[in-house]
């Protein structure tokens, strides 16, 4: 039968697509590890992770300052961006009048599309001088990078969590309100838990953007190899390091392996972060 054939074809196309894509994606991970593990071998795992000196001339690659820089930047930005974004999303879905939502939502979608270089650009010509003037030189700093990331990730997190929040069935809301809960209690006890998995996805996406952002950070963080002691110190992240050096790295060199090594560490970050989120979300379901 014709209908049957279409069904079968669709099934196999879908299966095929999914399978091939997953294969490619596994390939990518393999590729990264394949190149990056050499960095651990060539430098020694300990030296690579805890060495403080990254020098092409010495052929020594210690990524500690980068790792610390990345952690500061990511954690710092997400600690602000996640709650703020969720607040905005809650505001838009549950409090703002309909017409406001109709205006704000397209703005958010627009902001999602602003290229990160543009954020970097703004950071460079506006934020960095501002910081330099008011908080002291050099302006290029952790603070600038974190601020840029916050601005970059908010639209993404808002957009995704707003969708999830809106998908929470009205009947849950009704149930809670009818039992005498205030709007806020309903949001807190019913809507947010029901939207939890989507919100966590949103935050994961946001963190992904934050951890993975390279160019915008590169433009404002100063890229010094020192471990920053305060928010206005310059710093360097794993990604900005890759961006800064990738063009000079020769294929097959210890240098490029070290850069891939940075990639692996980034992946581990993402992995650890995702696992934490996942655990948190499981926990919530019980409570």
């Amino acid at each position: 039968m014709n209908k049957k054939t279409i069904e079968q074809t669709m099934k196999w196309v879908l299966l095929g697509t999914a399978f091939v894509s997953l294969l490619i994606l596994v390939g990518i991970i393999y590729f990264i590890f394949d190149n990056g593990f050499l960095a651990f071998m060539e430098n020694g795992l300990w030296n690579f992770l805890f060495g403080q000196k990254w020098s092409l001339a010495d052929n020594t690659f210690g990524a500690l300052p980068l790792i610390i820089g990345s952690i500061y930047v990511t954690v710092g930005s997400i600690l602000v961006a996640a709650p703020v974004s969720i607040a905005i999303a809650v505001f838009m879905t549950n409090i703002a009048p309909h017409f406001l939502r109709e205006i704000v939502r397209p703005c958010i979608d627009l902001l999602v599309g602003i290229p990160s270089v543009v954020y970097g650009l703004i950071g460079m010509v506006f934020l960095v001088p501002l910081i330099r003037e008011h908080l002291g030189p050099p302006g290029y700093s952790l603070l600038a990078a974190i601020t840029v990331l916050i601005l970059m990730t908010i639209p993404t997190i808002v957009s995704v969590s707003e969708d999830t929040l809106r998908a929470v069935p009205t009947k849950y809301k009704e149930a809670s309100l009818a039992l005498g809960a205030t709007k806020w209690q309903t949001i807190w006890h019913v809507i947010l838990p029901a939207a939890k998995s989507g919100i966590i996805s949103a935050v994961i996406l946001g963190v992904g953007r934050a951890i993975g952002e390279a160019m915008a950070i590169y433009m404002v963080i100063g890229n010094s190899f020192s471990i920053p002691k305060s928010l206005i110190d310059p710093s360097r992240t794993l990604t900005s390091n890759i961006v800064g050096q990738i063009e000079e790295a020769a294929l097959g060199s210890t240098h490029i392996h070290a850069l891939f090594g940075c990639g692996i560490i980034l992946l581990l970050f993402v992995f650890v972060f995702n696992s934490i989120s996942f655990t948190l979300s499981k926990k919530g379901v019980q409570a």
Partner: protein
Amino acid sequence: GCGDQSSSSNAGAGTTEQEITYSGIIREAGSTSVLPIAEKFALAFMDMYPNLEITYTGGGSSAGVKQCAAGTVDIGAASREVKISETDLISIPVARDGVAIIVNENNPIQGLTIEQVTKIYTGEITNWSEVGGNDLQITVYGREEGSGTRDCFDSIVLKKLSVSPTALAKKSNGEVQIGIQEDASGIGYVSLGYINGVKALPLNDVECSIATCQDGSYPIVRRLYFITQTIPSDAVNAFLNFCRSEEGQKIVADNGFVPLVH
């Protein structure tokens, strides 16, 4: 001044060199052409003063100038002099550099004339067979505008002509080199220090080497600069002097660059 923030020195005027020690960090950033030699300078200088650390990041000549002006680095490296608009900075030549025309090692071409190179870059010649090579489309590797290497190449080779729009633009010498290394159809220009793994072509029958650059027979030569703020710190000053000293210029020659003419 930019040096005061990051590098401290306990040197007093008039003391002899032996007694002075420098400590802290000197931060450099800028041209990728200068990178190899800057690193060697740094290593040698750090050997002399173990408490001192010198870091270098790439990014291009303009980035070097900008960051130095902003005070994020102590020394900006550039393969061009500072422009008039970039005030408050001084440029100190520390080495010279030839710009080599490179092709893939498997390319049978043995040499080109400047006119041929010009025509290739303006898009007048598009096939290797027109200059005696294989029947293969030429892929032109160039640099982004603002690059010191490109400034030099444009002014000496292209003169007032503009580069063909089909030319690829790269952000660094390394990128051009990697590209040419793998691309049999490619032609590019890089700083002399980047000619491993690729074939540097003789221009007008003159081999591209330190010697030919030094004696002026090879046409595309330029100076490399360290840029600092008008009053550099003592440590930076000492470093700059070291680079320009005979010892420093020996490092230049040993590493594939052209020493300054004294």
